[in-house]
């Protein structure tokens, strides 16, 4: 098995990596690139902690061969704040509503939450809960997380008035 060159654009920055074909995206992002905001947990797609956006769609980093993302645009939790450090509105809402306890699920939750708000600017509580079904949280009981996404939804609506 030979290493391959892999060109990835991660959070707007171009990377030329040398990796083996059997390496998983979550490990390449965390260990080769050093962006540890993306978490590894179950490794079987159940928990969603390894979620990253590939070409703007949430996918499971633990079930994606890194080589298969060649030429794609990857967004991790580190890439959603503004360059000057100003938080994304959903990150801000997570902080303001205390939607974080241990924080392990938070990166995945925020990426999936952003995906929902991009596709549906006015989701109901049921729609929110359905959209985050692939992301497990063992601390909050989800209520805080749902509240955060609702707050972000409402803040966005208010700003557009």
């Amino acid at each position: 098995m030979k290493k391959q060159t892999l060109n990835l654009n991660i959070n707007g920055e171009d990377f030329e990596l040398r990796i083996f074909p059997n390496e998983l995206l979550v490990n390449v992002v965390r260990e080769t690139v050093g962006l540890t905001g993306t978490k590894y947990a179950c490794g079987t797609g159940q928990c969603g902690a390894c979620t990253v956006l590939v070409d703007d769609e949430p996918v499971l980093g633990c079930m994606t061969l890194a080589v298969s993302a060649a030429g794609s645009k990857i967004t991790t939790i580190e890439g959603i704040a503004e360059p000057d450090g100003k938080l994304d509105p959903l990150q801000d809402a997570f902080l303001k509503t205390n939607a974080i306890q241990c924080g392990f699920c938070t990166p995945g939750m925020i990426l999936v939450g952003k995906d929902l708000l991009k596709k549906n600017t006015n989701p109901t509580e049921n729609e929110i809960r359905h959209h985050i079904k692939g992301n497990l949280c063992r601390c909050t009981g989800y209520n805080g997380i749902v509240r955060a996404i609702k707050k972000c939804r409402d803040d966005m609506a208010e700003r557009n008035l």
Partner: protein
Amino acid sequence: MKMNTRIISHEFDYHAPDTIREVLEMLDQHGSDAKIIAGGTDLITQMKMGKRTPSHVVDIRKLKDLRYYVEGAVIKIGAGNNFRSVMEHFANNVPCRGLYEAIYSIGKTQVLNMGTIGGNLSNGSPKADTAPPLLTYNARVKLLSLKSERLIDLKDLHVGYNKTVMEENEIMTEIQFDALPKNTAGAFEKKARVGSDISKITCAVTVTRDNDVCRNCNIALGAAAPVPMRAPVAESIMKGRPFSDQLLEDTALQVGREINPPAYGRTSVEYRREMVAVMFKDGFKRAWEQAGGDK
């Protein structure tokens, strides 16, 4: 089974050909050493568990030629379409409601983005959620190799637990079925351990209605036997008869009798038998109402 979930420990070469023809050539060349990967949501788990150790992994996800829809007398779905795309395509299609509900039940946003309908059927699992609704449509699948193309009935695809009739040099390119008749509607019912999960038992119903008469009631079940199955005896109870509550009860009981689940997996045989009858009734009632007619 002991499972390493962090890495894939065996070595392989990765190929991402640009055309279906190149995929077929690779499969032909490498035989059982090669494995197709589409979304990878089944295959990566199998590789992590060491259940599959292909030395060549052939990626078909970027092939646009496998992502299409054709509407008309025959409805055609490219095998490379991901769950999300199929769900959106059938979102307002009343006759094909069962397929929509089946994919909706898979739930997890990331799996909907990654998993493909072709992968769901090719993987061969009796729990594949798209199989039951497609069985009620009498769907066919197109299998292509360098030397042949064949169209087989979906009911003949699965031949045993995680086993299909597909040859190792074949790729599934298309799922197709005849457009469903007027006054048809369907439903999909699923029981799983948690909100969105692999099925314990599922039931798809597709009903065609002629006012009060049930012209056709196609019933298919997942995780109910070693392969996804139809329930022909139960179907015959309802077919061609005016609807009555008693008929519905009789049919539901027969659905429970007709399943043949293995005595292992995510739940007991008894649970499946009892539940599937209730699930059938719920699904049937929803479909019956949607199928319209005068009443």
